[in-house]
């Protein structure tokens, strides 16, 4: 179980690296914004898996805070984009 969790964490890390490179290459600036999504989901996944490999249950708290920050900043970002568009400052 511990070994499997570690292997899956490594696999997710490889996925994250490949996806980050692909997103950073673009071609549009909207593609580059996908990187924010990747850290929110794959990043939390890696953290919880590492906590299951005996690196400390505190990593679950780190993952929880990361997901919470991703949610708050994501909603703030969506709301901001929204209001800027409504006021015509887009």
């Amino acid at each position: 179980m511990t070994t499997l969790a570690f292997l899956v964490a490594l696999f997710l890390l490889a996925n994250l690296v490949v996806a980050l490179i692909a997103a950073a290459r673009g071609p549009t600036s909207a593609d580059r914004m996908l990187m924010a999504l990747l850290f929110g989901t794959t990043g939390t996944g890696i953290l919880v898996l590492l906590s299951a490999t005996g690196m400390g249950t505190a990593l679950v708290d780190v993952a929880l805070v990361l997901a919470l920050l991703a949610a708050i900043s994501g909603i703030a970002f969506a709301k901001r984009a929204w209001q800027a568009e409504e006021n015509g400052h887009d």
Partner: protein
Amino acid sequence: MKRSLLLRGAAFALLWWVLSEGRGDGWLLGSAAVIAASWASLKLAPPAPPHLRLTALPGFLRFFLWQSLAGGVQVAALACRGRAALRPGFVELSLALPPGAPRLFFAGILGLMPGTLGVALDDARLRLHVLDTRLPALAEARALEAAIGRLFGVAP
């Protein structure tokens, strides 16, 4: 007001129990946190209609879990077949949900459902991006709209 205070207090107490992983020695600090959180939440987000209906929550969760599983499986299959399998395009949808929380909730959550992604919302029209214009994305969006309407207790 009293009912929302009790409900929110209970929710925050449950949250504390989960966050402290069921340990009993932190409840002194925990009670202070629960009281402070309930007070702040009533101050910052006073109860206003439409209210979430707790009785409709299990049904909505089942619908949501099933649909997000279907969405994940569908998009995974499409990813394996590559771009040749895609027939993407924009679709317009006129909304029946009232403005405010239900409508925003709908626009956001569509991105987690099979084949659809909310793109732009103005007045009562929502523009969707669909992965395959031959699939019945509109019907699924309508089903989600109805489920959210039940969750908020508003007729869509």
